[in-house]
């Protein structure tokens, strides 16, 4: 099956283009007026797992906008990110007779058939954050391709290295630390990031294969400490997992290290990291506005469920968020087909790098 690692050559420019284009066309291509109202629709909003700060933040965002839009967002999920649990949750959504499903899938293909069943039952399926096969869903609200996010992780590290006076062009010892090889997006960011490093910073030395801490806070600290102990001269640790990043920072704090001694960066919600920012353990980390992402997932799901149609390339005006441009599936995974109607990708324009200066502006 296909996946999102077989990504092509799209780079930073895609991101920039998407941004400007979306903004420009939002005005030009005003909604034609005969939009059917989404009010009263029920969307099952399914995370990979509940209790994780990323998904909780997405849910908060979705709920906030849902009130404005007058739709019901039913947050349904299991505490474990496993295929079988998600299958059960989807079945529950089908049984409950929701109008639409917006899901972040734990597996690139395993949910396809269940989601098609849902579609057969008249339910609109959209994905967000983590995709399934394009023919098993209508729209996907993506935070960007691996080729955008992988390099972004590296670049945040480079910035921070520069700021503490390490030359990123020279030999930099670095490591990745995330939850598990089996977590699709995190792994694809690692793969894309590695590729980017090979091309752009050929002198860098990876001290080890990625470290995995399986979304266990204790393990993330234990491994974090071990990484620092085993490699006292390490310069950079990239933690593309929202449990690994605070764990690694805690480990550094335990060792008495600060952002002056070692650079730690990665993806996590701002709320999870301010303690370490304040303690001077890390300088910058990033994420996209997952609240908006979740809300968009729900909006598109409800929008289609209301009987509206979308053609890839359309720009949709989302109340409260603004104009959003849709693109064909091939923008996300080159070479994939896009159905003539109601199929495509929404690239989330905004990704944020959090630093001391801007972190107060975000509360998720």
């Amino acid at each position, binding site marked *: 099956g296909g996946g999102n690692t077989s990504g092509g050559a799209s780079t930073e420019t895609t991101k920039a283009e998407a941004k400007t284009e979306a903004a420009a066309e939002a005005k030009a291509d005003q909604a034609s007026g005969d939009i059917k109202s989404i009010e009263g629709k029920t969307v099952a909003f399914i995370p990979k797992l509940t209790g994780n*700060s990323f998904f909780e933040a997405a849910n908060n965002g979705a709920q906030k906008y849902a009130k404005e839009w007058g739709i019901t967002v039913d947050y349904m999920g299991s*505490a474990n990110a496993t295929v079988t649990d998600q299958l059960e949750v989807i079945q529950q959504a089908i049984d409950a007779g929701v109008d639409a499903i917006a899901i972040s899938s734990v597996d690139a293909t395993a949910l396809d058939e269940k989601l098609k069943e849902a579609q057969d039952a008249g339910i609109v399926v959209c994905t967000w954050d983590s995709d399934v096969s394009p023919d098993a869903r209508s729209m996907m609200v993506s935070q960007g391709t691996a080729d955008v996010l992988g390099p972004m992780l590296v670049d945040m590290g480079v910035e921070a290295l520069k700021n503490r006076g390490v030359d990123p062009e020279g030999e930099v010892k670095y490591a990745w630390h995330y939850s598990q090889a089996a977590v699709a997006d995190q792994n694809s960011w690692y793969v894309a990031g590695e590729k980017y490093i090979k091309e752009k910073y050929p002198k860098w030395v990876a001290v080890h294969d990625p470290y995995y801490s399986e979304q266990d806070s204790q393990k993330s600290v234990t491994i974090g400490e071990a990484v620092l*102990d085993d490699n006292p001269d390490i310069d950079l640790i990239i933690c593309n997992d929202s449990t690994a990043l605070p764990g690694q920072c805690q480990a550094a704090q335990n060792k008495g290290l600060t952002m002056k001694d070692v650079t730690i960066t990665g993806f996590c919600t701002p709320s999870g990291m301010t303690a370490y920012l304040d303690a001077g353990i890390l300088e910058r980390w990033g994420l996209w506005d997952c609240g908006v992402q979740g809300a968009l997932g729900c909006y598109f799901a409800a929008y289609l469920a209301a009987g509206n149609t979308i053609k890839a390339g359309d720009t949709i005006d989302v109340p409260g968020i603004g104009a959003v441009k849709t693109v064909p599936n091939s923008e996300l995974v080159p070479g994939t087909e896009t159905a003539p109607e109601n199929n495509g990708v929404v690239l989330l324009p905004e990704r944020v790098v959090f630093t001391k200066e801007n972190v107060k502006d975000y509360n998720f």
Partner: protein
Amino acid sequence: MKYLNELKKARWLSSFLFLIALFLVTGMVNPDFLTYSNIVTSFNGSVVFTLLAIGIAFVIMTGEIDVSIGAVMGLTATIAGQIAKRNGSILEMLVFAVLIGMLVGAMNGIGVSFFHVPSLIFTLGINGALRGLIYVVSGGKTTENFAGAFTKIGNQVLFAEVTIYLAIIVVIIAVIHLLLTKTKKGKYFIAVGDNPNGATLVGISVMKTKMLAYIICGIFAGVAGVVFASKYGQVNIVAGTGYEMSAIAACVLGGISLSGGLGNILGAAFGAVIMSSVSRMLVFIHLPSNFNNTLTGVMLLIIVVADALVQRHAVESARRKRLLSRTAAFDAKVGGKK
């Protein structure tokens, strides 16, 4: 032979030896590992498992089991995190943790010793209920970003890289070990696990002892939650899932028999260090993290199988030796005649 017998008597010793072997093997692959600091860090990192293992050791000694400790820990960790977020004191957290631990322990104790529900089932049910409760208490969210002072305590070094927690736990272990082995009542736990009817006959209340074991276990798990929160700085809603199994494994590694009546607390503590050090050692051995589970599994199996075989050999050869000496005694006495 003599050493083997000693080993049989002091089964915690074998887990200690194994721990040393483990350190040495890691050190052989990566000599950097064998520094004082690295070894102390292994111990520092094991305090949560150690607390859980000590607690559950009481229950296992009485011949029961408690699979709800991971959930107790998760619950008190969540609450501790929430208290920390509003700058509450660590004392307040401990009070909550101890109360919750006692309450859950008492419920388990009542279910198991009063209603005679098999402990696996009962604590399984409690486990489910507590997991649901964690969901309610945490609002389904990771509790994180608590005040820095709290996590600082969690990793405060007392002397020579030994954290406060580690120091306290070493003292606790020493005290408990002495209480369990040197006092009359301390032996009750083992006695109840060894033969409940026999214990009843000599005036030991099986019900009270089991009750007490569960309460102690609950308290340790509760306190482990506070330690967890203060050491790791974030508590997600599945925190502690599967820790009960690691704690049980730690006890078994330390020579505490799951059928009860055998073992001591030192073993549980060393077992816990083994269980919590594996992922750290793997980093030093430079194996891909994908080998984590495989190696932990292989190691666990090797230790328990080897231990079982050694024990069996020891028991069997002691029996045979005694039986042979019986016939030998005859030969000695009447040998001249034959």
